[in-house]
Every structure is written in structure tokens, then in C-alpha cells.
């Protein structure tokens, strides 16, 4: 379960997690948010951007339940639920993360979730968890 190191471009995202906040880039030309971190805006190609803090709220866009992994460290954690979350701030901005705090059978499309923050391999990382009673 090695975690890829932050790149110079993505360091502010990971730094945000250390402070308990999710951040994405926002294009300074067209004002659109984007994730993953990219060198230029995929909508208008501007290279000007700032990092913006997010509410940490979103909803489930897609998910899977992993029962078998070829990676021994992940296999030891099965079953686990990787989820793609669409953030509340902008349609189409998707942030992957592990979904925790519910059973696999309880996951639904559109389920409201929020980011919580934990540590893994000595680094801060976000998880998604439901904001409503399941």
C-alpha cells in the first residue's frame, strides 16, 4: 500500500490534508475548479490558478467494493470501498477516496458524504463518510 509521493504540482492538496482541509485548483481565467491537479486548465488552457479550500461535502458518483486485490496490503483490508465523489461546489469535479462508516450493501448513488481526515503511512489522507444516518 505504498502511497505515491506528492508532486510539486499536487503538494498543496496533500498539505491541505495535513491541515484538515480539501483543496482543489481554481482557474483564474474561467474560474472553474478542477481535480486532479493539472498544469493548465482542461477547459480553457489557462496556466493561471489558485488553490481553493472546499467545504469537504459531496455525494457518491461511483463506487466499487473490492473483495480481491493482487496487492497484499490491500487484500488484507478487503472488503473495502473505493468511491468517486462529486463535490458540492461544482458539477463534474470528482475526488476519489475510500468510503468508510457503512456496509458495502448500504452504498447508494448520490449518497451525501463528507471528507474526514486520518493518517496512513505517516501522511495525512482523506476518507469519505456518510453525512446522514444509514
Amino acid at each position, binding site marked *: 500500500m505504498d502511497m505515491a509521493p506528492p508532486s510539486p504540482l499536487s503538494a498543496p492538496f496533500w498539505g491541505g490534508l495535513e491541515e484538515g482541509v480539501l483543496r482543489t485548483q481554481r482557474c483564474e481565467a474561467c474560474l472553474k475548479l478542477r481535480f486532479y491537479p493539472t498544469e493548465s486548465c482542461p477547459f480553457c488552457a489557462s496556466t493561471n490558478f489558485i488553490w481553493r479550500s472546499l467545504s469537504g461535502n459531496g455525494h457518491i458518483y461511483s*463506487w*466499487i467494493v473490492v473483495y480481491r486485490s493482487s496487492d497484499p496490503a490491500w487484500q488484507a483490508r478487503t472488503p473495502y470501498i473505493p468511491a468517486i465523489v462529486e463535490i458540492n461546489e461544482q458539477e463534474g469535479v470528482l475526488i476519489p477516496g475510500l468510503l468508510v462508516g457503512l456496509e458495502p450493501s448500504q452504498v447508494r448513488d448520490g449518497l451525501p458524504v463528507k471528507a474526514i481526515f486520518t493518517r496512513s503511512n505517516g501522511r495525512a489522507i482523506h476518507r469519505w463518510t456518510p453525512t446522514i444516518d444509514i
Partner: protein
Amino acid sequence: MPHIGKRAVISGIGWTEYSHMSGRSVEALAVEACRAALEDAGLTSRDADGIITFGLQDTVSSAVVATDLAMPVVNHYADYNAGGNMACGVVLHAAMAVEAGQAQHVIVFRALNGATGLRYGGADFSNVLATTSIHSDSEPQFLDSCGVTMPLQHFALLCRRHMIKFGTTTDHLAAVAISGRSYAKLNERAMKQEALTLDDYYASPLIADPFRRADCCLQTDGACAVVVSAADVANDLRQRAIQIASGVSRTGPRARGGMWGNFWDDHTFSYAHHTVPGIFDRAGVSAADIDLAQLYDCFTYSVLAQFEDFGFCKKGEAGPFFAEGRAMLGGELPVNTAGGLLSEGYIHGLNLVVEAVIQLRREAGRRQVIGAETALVSAGGATSTGSALVLARR
């Protein structure tokens, strides 16, 4: 509309055994398949003057194989560091090379020990994806870190979106696997020839819900090859030349991400949506003219997305189409008539091109689609990038 003209044909095809353990080097497999394709065409390696391949750190280079074949001259070569999305693109490249006058007979091959060498379902492959520019640096940072490390997990995430939006079910996925297997039973090359029932499908273990093992393609040791020739010289060769009527490698905006594309507008659509109408227009046909389709089936779901996106039915209707058996032999549109990557073997999609040629030459025996004139072959699964060919018997 740019026209990939009428001057390139497939003049020969060849393959090795598709097995779980070749016991041979990838190089040996590649050379055997290339020799077989040349012999099929009635050519020798002295006639071939171009060679193209693709792979992901698991193949041999075109120069190695050209040397083994003692090709006197290599007028055109290319080596793609690419996945199955280029399995048709390499044939398109060969056709363009022929049409541009770069070469006269171009060998296109794919060789791998996908079962005993680098396994695409294995942990080593995750590392290849992360370190060889197949992915951007974002996939390892943001997907691997939440346990999405295997291709099937990416595709299962795509499939889930289709289930959410269109009500696609696991019964529909099963139908794709069962339909493909119905042909594999009639294909002596196929690695999986035993019957597959719905009960068998549901007895297959869940790997990443919604995918079971039966939703995943095989891991195969083997190789195959085709020879792309200039039509004016192919008329004198041994086999009926199969025309490369059109080819595309085309996609839409924000296609970044080899599998799960985090910027893709609508994850229920694949690259195939962006190949239409060009893929058909350039061939002078419509989707209704296609007699059989070989659709890249790295996973069952990939077939559903592409089938819809090429326009064979409306979005959301592919699952019922397969469940009703309409893609089986005698159905409205036979799909993956050799059993595909799910049942025949995984030669990274190039074996789908081989099968289309066999069908159009009408050499498919008990699985022959009667009157086959025009075939679509695709490469790329349900993702944002891919390529496709229309092949024709004319």
C-alpha cells in the same frame, strides 16, 4: 472528411497457440506469428518492408523481430508504448504507411506472455502503469492511494455509472460473457471452450463488485499478426485481400487518464461515441451495414458501452440486446465471434482483427457469419481512448 483510402488491405494473418503457459520467449512467439502471417499471404520475410507493434513493457521491439526475420530492409517501423486502445490503431498506422508509400507490406504483431510473464491483473502491472507514462502521475497519487490499483477496478467504476444511469444489471454483464462463450465453443483456438451458464457466472467469485472473475478477460501467452499490404500488389497474393475500409483513433475532450478518466464528461460514454460517424462515413457504410462486430472485451461491460456508442442501439439498450441473445450466431448482429478476449484469449485486442479477417474470408467454419461482407473491429474498452477499423470483403 479525411479519407483513409481504399488502397490498403490485410493480405495475411497468423497466430500461435493461445495458452496459459507457452514455455517460450515473447520473441519466439512474435516471430512464429509473423512468419505464419507472411506465409498465409504467400509472402516471405524478404517481401516485408515494414513492421509495427505495441505493448506495455511486455513485448519485443519491431527491430528485434525484423532481425529475426532477416528482413532485408525496414522502410517503416513503429513501436507503441500503448495498451489495447491501439490494437486497431496500429493497423490503421500500417494502412497509412502503405498509402503514403512508406512501405508495401507491413507486418503488425502483438506478442506477450500475459499469463506467465507480466500479468495485467497483478501488482507488477500497477507499477508499470504508474511509472511508464501510461497514466499521468495523478492515478497513483489519487486512485492507488484509495486501493484502485488494478484495471478491473477502474472499469468496474465505469460500469457502476452505467448501472446508475441506465439500470444495467449483472444479468446483462453475464449475457455478454455467455454470448461470447457460445462462439468460443466453436473455435479451436479458444482457451475457454466449456459451456458457461448463468449459474456458472454467478458462481464466479466477486473481485470488485460489480465485477466477478467471469467479467474479466483471460491472461494469455501467445501472439498474433496481420500483414497490411498495398492493394495493387495484394491482388496477386495467396488469399483474398480484406480491405481496410476505414480506421480511426479519435476521442473527445479531456480524455486524460488511461482507464478511469477523472475529467471525462460522462463516464457512461466511451471513446467509441467520438468515432461516429467518421468510422462509418469514411468506409461508405452505416452502422446498419455492419454484419459482425469484434468489440474489445477486456471486461464484459466494455462491450455494452461500445455497442451503444457505435450506434448499434440507444444508450442503455445494449444489456437487453445481449440478454435476448441477439449478438449470438444467427442473431441481428453477431459480436465477438471467436469468443473475444473473455473466452478466446487476450492478445491485447489484435486477435479481434484476426477473427474479423477470418470471418470476411469466410473461413470461420461452424461459427461463420453467413454472408459476412463488412465488419467493425474496436480497441479500447469503455474508456476515453481507443481506435477502430471497418474491414470489408470487396
